[in-house]
């Protein structure tokens, strides 16, 4: 294998010199609008694959959590079909995943434990393979429930949701190098306004700012939702804060009150922009986090999503590359909404469509013309019976209407519950691996 790789690279380098300029690609802000700005390569044209990190369902197929690859190139003969699946041999509440900065790997994990799975997507982007499983997160940090996997140069910053002691929401972040070696951990701030809870993290490098949000611990997110919402004491154990960190020093600078479990964080990708948005799940509000003229960060509620009295549960948001639009998925009512963000201080809903009986993640292509939606929130929070649809649905977006393009029924295909998505491309094959033609 190595000899093949070497021969290819030997040929490729002079060929590159003859055919094209050897590029030293600069850092670009944003990936397909919501990834780490340190991700090496944007897919600015048509993506070929959607990787779906999928929760296993006992009795359905092999029952394991798995990485599913779906062909989403409309010109392909296998458009809308499953190309591969990589089971990890456990069922541990598969949830989120993230690329390393070189986009050679996807790191993914489950909220029920602390294992982190590392997949190679560069050797053959259509057929990822499990490279290794990182098993020392809990032992090294005391944190469990790895949620967000965020690329820093040569490293991955992993945001956990819970801890080994009481399985509550007080937790922290762990830093690994891209080889999977543990480097350091950072507890979420407790006291002086900090509740210690965590959920998502996102970086604005030009401001040296790391922003974190907050959800709840294992003891809550693993309980059946119907039972949980009747438990008044348990419902008080949700995060109500966001924290701005000094990214370079990895020290918390400011704790901001953002009640109602602020979840996904999306920085504006416009160069020079100094704001991010998030959605508070329990209050159904959009919040703006912005740096003021004095350099201090301020959080303020700027819009309402649906009817908060009906608890629509906004579960994912996706910002457009120009920072002027925001997709919002709400789990309970199955609505996909579009907000005009031209004035981030006053977002206005301009479109909505019922896209499923239950909804979770939403991702868009860099050009905004394609939108992908999945169905599963958490195994014990998903709906039951006919409402428990499990799917990946692809849509086209012309600025006015979401039009269905394809669907993969994850139950019929015996895959499981479809959760987080990342986009892939066949042209992002690494030079180290020879193309097989």
């Amino acid at each position, binding site marked *: 294998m190595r000899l093949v790789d070497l021969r290819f690279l030997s040929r490729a380098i002079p060929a590159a*010199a003859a055919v094209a300029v050897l590029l*030293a*690609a600069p850092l670009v802000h944003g990936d397909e609008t919501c990834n780490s700005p340190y991700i090496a390569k944007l897919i600015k044209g048509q993506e070929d694959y959607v990787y779906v990190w999928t929760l296993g369902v006992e009795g359905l197929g092999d029952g394991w959590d798995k990485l599913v690859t779906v062909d989403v190139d409309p010109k392909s003969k296998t458009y809308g079909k499953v190309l591969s699946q990589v089971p990890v041999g456990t069922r541990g509440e598969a949830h989120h995943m993230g690329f390393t900065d070189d986009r050679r790997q996807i790191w993914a994990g489950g909220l029920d434990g602390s294992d982190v799975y590392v997949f190679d997507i560069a050797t053959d982007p259509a057929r990822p393979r499990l490279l290794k499983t990182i098993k020392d997160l809990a032992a090294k940090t005391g944190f469990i429930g790895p949620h967000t996997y965020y690329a820093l140069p040569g490293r991955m910053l992993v945001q956990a949701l819970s801890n080994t002691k009481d399985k509550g929401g007080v937790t922290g972040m762990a*830093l690994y190098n891209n080889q999977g070696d543990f480097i*350091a951990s950072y507890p979420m701030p407790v006291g002086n306004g900090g509740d210690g809870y965590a959920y998502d993290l996102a970086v604005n*490098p030009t401001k040296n700012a790391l922003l974190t949000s907050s959800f709840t611990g294992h003891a809550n997110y693993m309980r059946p939702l119907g039972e949980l919402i009747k438990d008044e004491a348990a419902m008080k154990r949700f995060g109500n804060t966001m924290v701005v960190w000094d990214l370079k*020093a990895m020290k918390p600078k400011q704790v901001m009150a953002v009640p109602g479990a602020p979840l996904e964080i999306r920085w504006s990708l416009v160069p020079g922009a100094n704001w991010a948005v998030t959605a508070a799940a329990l209050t159904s509000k959009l919040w703006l986090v912005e740096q003021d003229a004095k350099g201090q960060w301020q959080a303020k509620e700027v819009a309402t999503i649906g009817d908060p009295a009906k608890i629509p549960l906004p579960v994912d948001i996706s910002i457009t590359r120009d920072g002027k639009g925001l997709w919002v998925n709400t789990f309970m009512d199955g609505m996909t909404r579009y907000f005009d963000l031209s004035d981030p201080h006053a977002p206005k809903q301009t479109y909505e469509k019922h896209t499923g009986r239950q909804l979770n993640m939403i991702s868009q292509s860099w050009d905004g013309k394609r939108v992908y939606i999945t169905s599963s929130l958490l195994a014990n929070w998903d709906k039951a019976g006919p409402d428990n649809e499990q799917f990946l649905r692809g849509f086209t977006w012309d600025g006015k209407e979401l039009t269905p393009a394809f669907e993969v029924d994850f139950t019929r295909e015996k895959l499981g519950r479809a959760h987080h998505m990342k986009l892939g491309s066949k*042209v992002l094959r690494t*030079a180290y691996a020879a193309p097989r033609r």
Partner: protein
Amino acid sequence: MRTRAGRHALVASLFALWLAGRAAVPASADQPDEPRPPLEFVPPEPGTYELHRIMRAPEGRVLTVDGRVEALSRFTRERITLLGFIYTSCMDPEGCPLAYRVFGRLKDEIEAHPALRDEVQLVSLSFDPARDSPSVMKRYAGSRLEEDRGLRWFFLTTRSVEDLLPLVEGFGQDVRYSEDRSTGLPVRQLSHVLKVFLIDRAGYVREIYTSTFLHPRSIMGDIETLLMEQRSEGDPARSATSAR
């Protein structure tokens, strides 16, 4: 004869004095930090944060501009090293040329303070052994190579892809194969994302800069942080071993 620890303490003190002097005159977040746009934030003070040992710098064989085969470690140990991969034919202004400009600025700044010259070194290592021969690297280095009395700046290449691969893989410096989707034809093109590696005296990568953080001011702060660490820990090789 001065001991190594003593020399580190002296150098760190001089460096701190130099930074203090800088702070009294130009350095603020809104001032131009050529050759980059001004930083939009005030970096944390040197020594107030930790630079973790991210990984060991890989070992491998390289070629000097004189055509000698050497171990890379000869150029990445005993001093604080800034290493960047380059192509001499790179045209992207935010890529290799940017790294060259930043290295040039750092060299000038450090040389203005003789006590620092023996503490830091620069390495530009080519990705492109097929084109970047030792003589090409010598031309690329230009007058920088002749400045014998200044900060050491090594311009290195490799004999072959076989020699190059362990280095790019070991540093995690991605090199991508690509295709031209517009024509549907396989156009073999390589690209990489600019990364510069800060390596301590013991050979550990302590920071990785992409273009956003490739600011002389940030880098100088990190160099001072490492010097302060050396001063407090003594022999960096011993401290690195004990930390693992």
